[in-house]
């Protein structure tokens, strides 16, 4: 038995995957989403998830849920509270009001919640700030589906002035609730101040920004809304469905002429494309409806990964090449951020870096930079022969195309099989880093410094290196460069012929063509089978085209 498990773990990749899948199938109820089951490290996570008990539900909360579920008439709230308090749990005199309200609102028991809110406001005690928070939450959620009464609106305004009188500055959680409630009654001017207060101790949430943007559109303040969108994107808070929804509503409300509507819908799509956003499914649905109302053809579609062709309209998506300017920024940053970093000695040494820079200057530019170790280890468990063979196949593949190659590896490679490797080195340029240095930053840097036409060959997704670029704009540039230039080598059933995969022929972000748009959206249930290969899901796209005979 022990041996059996050992084999499961060490030798056999496939059974490891099966094993992990089995673990996940046991878990499906508990975890909605799980990253691709590929490594044994995942198993540790799974084990941890299984053993963590669900701590959120307590006897008290269960009681509140069931009691509000069953009772039709208005309960006696003081008795109700006493009943809750005598059960076991974390609720006490201090937080019971807030938690009761929150539980009721979260379960959409608005009648009970309103009645309890009424009870709270009528009682003579001063409301605690926790209870006020929950009231604001109630009104925000209620306003989503029904209209607020005048009394409730007055309460929100009164609370706003009261809270600021009492505390001068408010904390994060209160601000968020207040902002949402104020948006529910369209008091967007007051929200600005609230937003500033949140900035003091943290970044506002996605929901806060999107709700405010939605409200601005609702009140026809487009200029303000656009400013807010910029701020939101700068804070790495991409827009939620509610913001997009109000934006579209605004366009249709304001403009009646089809051409103008179209112009502004295009503006929205341009915004999505500019930020490389993948829109939520709900937004994709609404976009579909909007364009269809203009008598356009809109279909959910898939993109063929090989060719970048849309399965619906057969158009090929463009490859958005980096402009000279964009590439120059990448070039300026890559050496300092990837190789030098916080401490040069972490990844290499000054002498080595100098040697490398001299080499690149003297022998560049190249057509192909090979991550030799990565390519060689495609061979998997095979010995040095196998590794050299794959490397040779790949090098020859590119030599046939008359490419100039830079081979980048570590010095311990030279011990594999000297002769064969020397043969290879005669045909290419080469650079071997010390065994205790990292080779990945070097091959990336060599490729980028060499020029915009240079491609790289590596199966690595380079996520760690992309992260080191610090700013979002740079990371996006790097990602696009990677899509455009990264070849990958995979093992195949034929040992002598590994699969050499070309770079993507298209850029998988929202893009416009002469006759319409292609937009990616978030598929609702990404299957567990989905393996991250660095390219966003090609199966969930929106194809928007103008009908030819129309217009």
């Amino acid at each position: 038995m022990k041996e059996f498990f050992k084999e499961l773990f060490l030798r056999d990749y496939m059974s490891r995957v099966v094993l992990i899948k089995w673990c996940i199938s046991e878990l499906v109820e508990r975890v909605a989403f799980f990253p691709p089951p590929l490594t044994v490290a995942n198993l540790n996570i799974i084990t941890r998830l299984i053993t963590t008990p669900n701590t959120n539900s307590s006897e008290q909360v269960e009681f509140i849920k069931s009691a509000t579920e069953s009772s039709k008439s208005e309960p006696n709230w003081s008795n109700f509270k006493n009943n809750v308090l005598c059960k076991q749990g974390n609720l006490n005199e201090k937080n019971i009001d807030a938690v009761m309200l929150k539980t009721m609102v979260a379960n959409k028991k608005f009648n009970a919640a309103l009645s309890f809110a009424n009870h709270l406001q009528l009682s003579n005690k001063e409301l605690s700030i926790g209870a006020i928070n929950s009231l604001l939450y109630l009104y925000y959620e209620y306003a989503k589906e029904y209209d607020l009464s005048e009394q409730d609106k007055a309460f929100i305004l009164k609370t706003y002035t009261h809270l600021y009188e009492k505390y001068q500055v408010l904390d994060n959680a209160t601000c968020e609730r207040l902002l949402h409630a104020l948006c529910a009654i369209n008091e967007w001017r007051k929200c600005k101040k609230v937003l500033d207060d949140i900035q003091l101790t943290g970044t506002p949430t996605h929901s806060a920004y999107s709700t405010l943007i939605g409200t601005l559109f609702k009140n026809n303040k487009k200029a303000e809304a656009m400013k807010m969108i910029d701020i939101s994107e700068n804070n790495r808070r991409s827009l939620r469905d509610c913001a997009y929804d109000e934006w579209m509503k605004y366009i249709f409300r304001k403009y009646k002429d089809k051409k103008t509507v179209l112009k502004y819908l295009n503006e929205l799509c341009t915004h999505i494309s500019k930020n490389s956003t993948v829109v939520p499914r709900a937004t994709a649905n609404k976009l579909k409806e909007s364009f269809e109302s203009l008598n356009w053809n809109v279909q959910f579609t898939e993109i063929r990964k090989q060719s970048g062709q849309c399965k619906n309209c057969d158009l090929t998506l463009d490859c958005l090449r980096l402009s000279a300017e964009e590439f120059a920024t990448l070039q300026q940053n890559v050496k300092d951020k990837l190789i030098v970093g916080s401490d040069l000695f972490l990844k290499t040494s000054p002498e080595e870096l100098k040697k490398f820079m001299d080499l690149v200057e003297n022998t560049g530019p190249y057509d192909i930079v090979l991550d030799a170790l990565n390519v060689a280890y495609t061979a998997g468990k095979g010995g040095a022969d196998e590794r050299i063979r794959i490397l040779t196949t790949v090098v020859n593949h590119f030599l046939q195309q008359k490419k100039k190659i830079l081979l980048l590896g570590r010095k311990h490679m030279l011990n594999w099989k000297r002769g064969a490797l020397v043969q290879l080195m005669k045909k290419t340029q080469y650079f071997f880093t010390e065994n205790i240095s990292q080779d990945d930053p070097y091959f990336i840097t060599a490729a980028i410094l060499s020029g915009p036409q240079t491609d790289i060959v590596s199966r690595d997704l380079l996520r760690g290196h992309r992260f080191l670029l610090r700013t979002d704009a740079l990371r996006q540039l790097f990602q696009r460069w990677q899509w455009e230039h990264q070849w990958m080598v995979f093992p195949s059933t034929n040992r002598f012929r590994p699969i050499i995969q070309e770079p993507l022929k298209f850029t998988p972000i929202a893009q416009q063509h002469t006759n319409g748009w292609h937009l990616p959206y978030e598929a609702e249930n990404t299957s567990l089978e989905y393996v991250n290969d660095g390219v966003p899901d090609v199966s969930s796209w929106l194809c928007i085209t103008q009908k030819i005979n129309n217009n």
Partner: protein
Amino acid sequence: MFCLRSLVSHLRRPIKNKSVFLSRFTFNNTNIGQTSFRYYGLNAEIEDDSDAIVNDLCKGDSNLEKKLKVLMLEVEVMRQDGRCAPDYISKDKWARLLKMDTRNQRNNFLLYLFKLEKKKENEKARKEARKKQLEESPLEEFREYPDDLLYGIQYQSLFLRIRDSSMNMFDNYRALRSIIYGQSVVIDCSYEEHMVWRETLNAAKQMTFLFGDNRIHKDPFNLHMCNVKPNGEFMKQLRKNIPSLEEPWFPMNIHSESYLDLFPKEKLVYLTPHCREELTSFDPEAVYIVGCMVDKMNNEPLSLAKAKKDGLKMAKLPLDRYIEWAPGSKKNLNINHMIPILLDLRLTGDWEFALRHIPRRKLMETKILAMQKRFDNTSLNRQDLFKSFKNVRRNSSLTMNEKKFKSKRSLYYDDM
């Protein structure tokens, strides 16, 4: 310490003289009550010192004061919202909260404090329940005859009592002797800036264990802590753990200068898990350096970079040669595992024996045992499960030996 221990043994024993016992016990308990009073004090008292904390921490800086007040409000809202936040937060905890940038960090820290508080509360409740139970339980009279002699602490005894302090001195003697005759080992404490607060605390704890483990060994090392920042968080915590740390007689060397200033460079060997050379045998002439760092968050090869920069020899333990490592476990070891390994290695020269200090959780056998346990507890039909695994395994890969064996067998048996 000893007084507490003796008290415990009192409690285990049937009590002859109730009044003596009770008076001592209650005395001790009021002590506990007093020290813990500030944790569970009334709300009124807590309100009072919040202003004092604001004044102390901010020292008139209005921006800071504003932020602190917002944070206090935030915690108050969390309490009233039913989220987890402790009832009492001390001044230095506020200072830490003030330094945190994101809401998530604060929430995690508050959750940690909340759990700690609940733990203390439960502990206290448990102690009180036990006290009550002891008071209620009837006294056993275990003397058969009235003139029986009683043996044990506080009664008659055959043995001389060895006090904790004498044991302590005995251990320290061994450590002091090693300062004169022992081999030097350096603990490099320069990584404080790369650790988060919690890791610094862990490092200080490991350092404490390390000191203890070293001095009770048969032949201890002469420990040198180098690159020590006297005012850093690490030393603060270490002083808390070992109050007599900076006494002149204390058997450990603490230097704020680098090991390069203390030892000849060619003798130094930096032990780092990131390098490629393996330590094949223990060199009694060398001065080994171990980095004192906890790298849970930061997995950069810091010690490698340092050794490279200083141009020192590097080595790692030959873990893969002697031990079957579990997949996914890191190869870096705590300092309080490293030093006992080196100690045993020097004494015996036996790697297998020395490497027994490696925590079991990092080994393959533990992982396998855990998996077996999980399979035993599964709700699924085991037969099916195993069948499916076996199929996969047979189809996809056979080891070289299995393949050979199979092909040989197929030569001899027709039905294969």
